[in-house]
């Protein structure tokens, strides 16, 4: 029986003419989606939770033994894992901060009447439409110490961006900023253009300087949408894999996603890596929650 909540099919529609009713349409569209989600998302999620309590290795036929919380205990006591976490934290901080500053700055520049504004905006958005791996590969060429264009222009000689242990992480963050600052720009631009122009006029009449106007009017009014951009970018940066993997294979740039990949598919510690993945998941959910709480606070203001 179709429930009362369901919107009745318009009897004049083409679907109705073909003899379909609400129920068939529901089955046709909703059920495949739900089945797909269960098979490819929910089931693996639960199954890997089970694996995370075992010593299962996908590379052998040996049966999985239940080890309880042993995997979690080992992981959280492993100083190398903590190193991965601190590298990731540093990377997220640099990358997201950079993206917000560059993206918001670009949005401020674009938020005025300039010729060819639409074209410029579209061109600026191109980096984020490229594939991560492709971006990684051509930035590797740009960074190349022998023929890279970056060293040529900056006059840095044979400086090894991606091999230098202090610089490599920054180099990856720069690529991430280049690629994703446009995303922050796009959202900021939407936020900025939603600030009514007459508020700026009022601020001008009220004798507010440009800095005062920016910090007291512009920023608070754009904050909610900027916050959404930051949530998205933090989650993405947290799980960065391809960009860092393609660009550099240094221990100093080993982000958690790379460690996880190696653990799962090179060392075949399936049970251990499942536990690791769960730790990462909990962390991402926790961080996102903090942001969402803050976002709601900003919105309520």
């Amino acid at each position, binding site marked *: 029986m179709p429930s009362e909540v369901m919107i009745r099919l318009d009897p004049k529609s083409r679907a109705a003419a073909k003899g379909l009713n609400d129920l068939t349409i529901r089955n046709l569209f909703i059920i495949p989606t739900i089945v797909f989600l269960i098979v490819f998302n929910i089931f693996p999620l639960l199954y890997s939770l089970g694996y995370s309590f075992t010593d299962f290795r996908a590379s052998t036929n040996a049966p999985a033994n239940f080890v309880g919380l042993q995997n979690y205990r080992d992981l959280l006591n492993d100083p190398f894992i903590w190193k991965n976490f601190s590298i990731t934290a540093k990377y997220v901080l640099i990358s997201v901060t950079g993206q917000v500053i560059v993206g918001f700055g670009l949005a401020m520049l674009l938020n005025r009447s300039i010729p060819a504004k639409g074209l410029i905006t579209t061109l600026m958005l191109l980096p984020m439409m490229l594939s991560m791996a492709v971006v990684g590969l051509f930035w590797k060429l740009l960074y190349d110490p022998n023929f890279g264009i970056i060293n040529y222009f900056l006059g840095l000689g044979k400086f090894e961006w991606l091999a230098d242990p202090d610089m490599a992480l920054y180099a990856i963050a720069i690529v991430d900023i280049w690629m994703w600052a446009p995303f922050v720009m796009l959202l900021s631009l939407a936020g900025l253009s939603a600030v*009514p122009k*007459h*508020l700026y*006029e*009022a*601020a*001008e*009449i*009220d*004798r*507010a*300087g440009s800095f*005062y106007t920016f910090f*007291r*009017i512009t920023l*608070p*009014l754009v904050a909610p949408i900027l916050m959404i951009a930051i949530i998205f970018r933090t989650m993405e940066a947290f799980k960065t894999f391809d960009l860092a993997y393609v660009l550099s294979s240094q221990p100093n740039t080993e982000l958690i996603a790379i460690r996880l990949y190696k653990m799962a598919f090179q060392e075949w510690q399936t049970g251990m890596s499942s536990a690791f993945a769960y730790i990462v998941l909990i962390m991402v959910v926790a961080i996102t929650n903090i942001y969402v709480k803050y976002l709601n606070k900003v919105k309520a*203001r």
Partner: protein
Amino acid sequence: MAQIKMINVQKFFGQNQVLQDLNLTIEDGEFVVFVGQSGGGKTTALRAIAGLETITSGKILIDGVEVQDRKAADRDIAFVFQSFSLYPHMTVRENITFPLRAVRMDKTARDKAVNETAEILQITEHLDRKPSSLSGGDMQRVAIGRALVRRPQALLMDEPLGVLDSKLREQMRSELKRLHIARGSTSVYVTHDQIEAMSLADQMVILHDGVLQQVGAPDDVYLKPKNLFVAKFVGSPVMNVADVQINGSEVTMKGVDTGFTFDESTLASLAKYDTEITLGLRPEAILLSQARTKGYTQAVTTNIEPLGSHDIVDVRLGDTVLRVRTESGFVSGEGQPVWVGLDTTQAHFFDKKTELNLRGAA
């Protein structure tokens, strides 16, 4: 407190001239109302004084100092926007203190100023609320409070009551007047509502198509309109206008056999205009009589608007319909024969070509 002077102000938007040779002096402490139809240039003139709009040429002086090249922030004027323009993320208190904080006034002086202003405007109880939770009238009070709190040289208002409902408008109107009298600050006010303009203004400034039509006290403007536009714009119901012909001492409307008798001396100078003349009559300058009266012409009533305190009666006279103000219930219904006479001292004659008033103010 300041005198504002505009000298030969011109303003173009592209090819479109919105202010033409505007010359105007607003004396210290005056309440001046810019009034006109939309697109008449009144808001542009106000924004030019505020510094929100640059002018193409001319000078604007505040207290004798040329300010046309200064930014709004450096002119020390306050502005009340039609849309209120309150900062939505700040409380009422923060909104009102914003102009003081922007110039880094210290906290004790700030608090004192805010509390005083809030008291005058009766918004003390709303100080910690957000603008979005206020009624339209209170939002407007906050906007006015934000303008007054810094004791500006002049207070400019752009249709501040435009978005309020009519009852609240009337109330806010008298509050504005009271505030102006209490503060004595030079005020410039823009509205398209001539009744609002007349009730508030010391001086009315009537603008049409970017050209100044007349400056004067409300009475002056009403009784001695300089031209046909002013005559028709000011006053409600609108002044009656009729094409007429002058024959000796008589003025005849089109389609009517008998004319109205005027003073010889009044018509002597007008005779040369022959038919190139328009007669303007306020609704109260037309007299109705139920019985045949000497000098009156017979006509038929076509419509009656009973307004309580008085009635507006439409009377067909030849080709023209005149709107007449009578005491309420004077005419019982449509289609009634009445006799129409004129108070000739209140009649206006306008040149058909130049539209200038040929009598009284002329």
